[in-house]
């Protein structure tokens, strides 16, 4: 599936639709350069998963993992600062991936692809200022 969004608001709306379709244990892997809108889209996904508006979804770049509570437990994971994949073991990342919560992973290219075999993959590309091409793999339909 491929979508074009023309504003961060539209990206959030697309995220909401995806979020509403997720089920326990789903993993979403986000790919896209700095500033492409990964965190923005994740805000939408979280809203779609029933996370309250006032529970602010912010960038976890520094602390790596943010947790939110929606219909499921949501783990917002940001691998931006990870250099060495072995660091991921000490974060207990595999426990999150195999758990019953929902994992939303930014900079997923830093992970071993085998860990993401079952993941829904979201690729965000900057077309122009505020305009984004968003490709989604692993999701059959979007209501």
């Amino acid at each position, binding site marked *: 599936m491929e979508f074009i969004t023309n504003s961060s608001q539209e990206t959030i709306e697309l995220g909401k639709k995806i979020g509403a379709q997720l089920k326990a244990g789903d993993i979403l892997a986000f790919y896209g350069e*700095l500033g492409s809108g990964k965190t923005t889209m994740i805000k939408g996904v979280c809203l779609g998963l029933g996370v309250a508006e006032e529970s602010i979804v912010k960038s976890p770049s520094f*602390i790596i993992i943010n947790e939110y509570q929606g219909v499921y437990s949501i783990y917002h994971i940001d691998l931006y600062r990870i250099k060495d994949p072995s660091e991921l073991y000490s*974060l207990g990342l595999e426990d999150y991936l195999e758990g019953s919560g929902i994992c939303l992973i930014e900079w997923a290219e830093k992970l071993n692809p085998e860990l993401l075999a079952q993941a829904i993959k979201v690729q965000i590309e900057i077309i122009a200022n505020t305009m984004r091409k968003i490709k989604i793999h692993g999701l059959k339909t979007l209501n």
Partner: protein
Amino acid sequence: MIFLGIETSCDETAVGIVSKENSEEKILSNIVSSQWVHKRYAGVLPELASRAHIQLIVPVFKTALEVAKIGYSEIDGIAVTYAPGLVGALLVGLSFAKAVSISINKPFVGVNHLEGHVFAIFLSHPEIELPFICLIISGGHTELVLVKDRCSYEVLGSTIDDACGEAFDKVARMLGYSYPGGAFIEKLSESGKHSIKFPLPNVAKLDFSFSGLKTAVLYFLKENPTYPKEDVACSFQNVVVDFLLKKINQAVEQLGIRQVGVAGGVAINRYLQRRFFEYGTLYNIKFYFPRPELCMDNGAMIALAGLERYRRFGPSPLSLSPIARVRL
């Protein structure tokens, strides 16, 4: 009373020891792993990892005692950061603190990392009058807090997306430099001009936002790939400071409080400090910055926060667990 403070919420493994006799507060030692490891081993620290904390906590702890020239028996309590931060990292400090507390039979006190940053201001400026407004700006946090009294706070606003220091790091990365980016942006800016007008972030109330500014810099660099990096850095740094001052001004006017403390790693930025002091002179606001080594994550600020919490509320239960996200 002597308290030992342990901080492992992010990259630094830090242990500090402070004493408070009558009302005089003194830092007896304040050991931070990055500087210390470089000095002793000329080693390179992994960027982050609980494993690094596990390796460093004992030697940093022992060094803190050696430098302070005290033994276990002289410690009256152990303070430790329990939140917010990386859970695996917090867990190392927390477990170690509990173990020390049990083995020397002295009270154990959990401290919120952000409260520690507030105490860095008390350590550097015991003369500061209460209440004051405190801006905490670091790689992981951007919070505006009303400090009503020691251990009594009200959060006025915080970032809705990226942290202030994170914006510095990410813009530095766009300019081709890796983490940490704060010092790099500051240095680069010195030889740059404020030639680009990046939009001032627009966010309601006393909250902050840096994600839009980050994206504005990205768009600018895509359209102007050969533009002098110095000017991009300088213009970015300029608008960050303008934005922070705008929010501080808003808080000052709203609350009628004209003392403002500024803490956290970004507070080290000398350009920011200069602009804040100039602004303060113009608008009659008194700014207080901690000493540089107390702006960065450190154990002394946690030790003093723990000491004051202990005097007011007693010890924390040993069942205290780390929490990734928690408000002050």
